[in-house]
């Protein structure tokens, strides 16, 4: 079944059960299940962990351990727009830290935070693999490269204007 939920919606057990049942025939499907739940809600709502545990017959503590081990998973909701700032070697050499500074100014969110208006979540990532276009960021799944500080301010204000919704990661 295709799960269609908008980000920000309250988690529903029916949805979680459907996702789990789609996967539970395979061994080792906890991670894909969690990824699908995060795709649906933009994060892994903590209340879902117990439910997944019961459905899959795995201790909740183990699932919590998985969620906190992998940096992809979030236990808190994200803003409408997700920005990942690349801190790879090439981006570091081209001033990734300055990019983060400017983004914090423009969005109101430091790395690892969501802005107060809920518009932006800014995350730090190790490398987006677009090193020839350093410095780069990923905005809602799309890579923007060869950034200048002005280009970032412009991109952020464009997003603010258009009020786009986040396609979940």
């Amino acid at each position, binding site marked *: 079944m295709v799960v269609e939920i908008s980000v920000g919606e309250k988690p529903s057990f029916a949805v979680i059960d459907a996702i789990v049942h789609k996967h539970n025939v395979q*061994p*080792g*499907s*906890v*991670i*894909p299940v*969690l*990824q699908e739940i995060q795709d649906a809600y933009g994060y892994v709502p903590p209340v879902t962990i117990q439910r997944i545990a019961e459905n899959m017959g795995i201790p909740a503590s183990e699932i919590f*351990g*998985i969620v906190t*081990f*992998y*940096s*992809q*998973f979030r236990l808190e909701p994200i803003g409408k727009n997700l920005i*990942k700032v690349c*801190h*790879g*070697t*090439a981006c*570091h*050499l081209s*001033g990734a*830290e*300055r990019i983060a*500074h*400017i983004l*914090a*100014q423009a969005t109101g969110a430091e790395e690892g935070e969501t802005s107060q208006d809920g518009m932006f979540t800014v995350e730090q*990532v*190790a*490398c*987006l*693999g*677009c*090193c*020839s*276009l*350093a410095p*780069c960021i990923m905005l809602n*799944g*799309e*890579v*923007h*490269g*060869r950034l*200048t*500080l*002005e280009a970032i301010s412009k991109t952020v204000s464009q997003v603010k204007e258009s009020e786009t919704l986040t396609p979940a*990661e």
Partner: protein
Amino acid sequence: MMTLSKKKNGKWVIRVGLASCGIAAGGKKVYDTFRTKLQDNGLDVELKQTGCMGMCYNEVLVDISPPEGGHVFYKHVTPEQVERIVAEHLIGGKPVNEWVIPADALDSLLAKQKRIVLRNCGEIDPESISDYLDVGGYKAIEKALNSMSPQGVIDEITESGLRGRGGAGFPTGVKWGFARKSPGSQKYIVCNADEGDPGAFMDRSVLESDPHSVIEGMLIAGYAIGATEGFIYVRAEYPLAIHRLEIALAQAGERGLIGEGVLGCNFDFNISIRQGAGAFVCGEETALMMSIEGKRGMPRFRPPFPAQSGLWGKPTNINNVETLANIAWIILHGASAFNACGTDKSKGTKVFALAGKVAHGGLIEVPMGITLREIVFDIGGGTSSGLEFKAVQMGGPSGGIIPASLADTPVDYDSVNATGAIMGSGGLIVMDESACMVDIARFFLNFTQDESCGKCTFCRIGTLRMLETLERITSGKGEEGDLELLGELAQGIKRASLCGLGQTAPNPVLTTIRYFRDEYEKHIYEKKCPARKCQALITYEIIADKCPGCGLCAKYCPSDAISGERKKPHTIDPEKCIRCGLCESVCRLGAISVH
């Protein structure tokens, strides 16, 4: 960068590079504009998307092949330029030379390259299986199934001298042999596409540009060791690679190339994709398998090796993307064609992601044995900044820094190891004089410390102690004895860590101390950062003569440290300045100086 393509019905062919780099540079709009303009003009031209053409510094790239063959490459193409290209080149027959990459520039870029892994990259449409079939795709698995025994395949790969391209360089044929000999009816093939090294994008480019070649490599590996199931473990940060792999797997399934009875033979093989969830350590094979099994990705002790007891305790063979992309070529062309290229102990080619402060960054493939100098200067065109070439970083956080003085080191596993760096998976970052080596060491340690899974004490706590020491040095609080402390910690971490992450984590620090000890000493004893990078050791000032008082820097300054009247030179208050450097980045007149 490519072999001459087969002409299709004598048509013009337009290729737009749409791997992640091309898309990030605006390639999709260029592609769409071409489509519209071709329709408007009623032109019967084959327009196709391709993957990475390798010249990332020229993105957006468009490759136009006239009906009589050959290639004309346009660089930095914008949607606005498309109309003129269509009118003058496609209709008028004359390339718009001012936007074309000159032939001699292409020659110097390509002369020292040899493309085996990247043979189809930039040439075929990665989302079209018929494109792959047109260039001889899936002929190698056909050959293996019809005319070679599984042991024969392993012998051919062993004979070719192919070594694992993930970094460690273990002979691929030998590895396959172990997995084949392991008893058990259920065996697995895993493709390691968890390319986690910051500064590396080879695997992403191959998967985005030629996914079928990797699938075919897995099929051949599966046939050779007797496996029926494969997993591709790919980073979630690579959505386009995942998308194109999904398309490729579906297409291969429809054609009977994967599934039950591959090509009508008595060989079953299925492949599924598993997305990594953002843990660098999962690039290590035992951690990767834990992650596929749905657990925290923590490495375990070897032996038993995966070939004996891997996924769910079954014999498992794990190869890197680039290794697998070599396989079909070797089976089709023979081991001797492959090992004709390279050095005594390192055969074939190596793909590098050439990036950093280099003029011609991109994806390159070179014969083993080429020197770093040839890569940086002949292919890379020297530094992008015009500043002096200082060093290259190879092998990411597990690798090390090789200084300019060793630029004549040949690129093969053993020579690179001798410098203290490692071949690694292929990240090759060029650094110019503006790079601070202590800062680079701190940067990598920060990464490995963060990514340590926490299982081994030396890795978990030792890397933190090293990081703290480096942070003290870069913030001007370095002390006598710090270098010895770093050396001692490094030895302990290398010896007492279970997996490659910990065993290699100190390499960036050790190589920078080895080759740039004077830079460390300047930080520690003189409290100076010669490259003017370390924030605590520098001050920013405005050069009054150059400052027209435009106020741009003041607008961007996050700490309100810059003040001045409009149209008069501004000043920076050192007390308020947090040394973020934004003013330097935004000033178009170079009026900000760093001391």
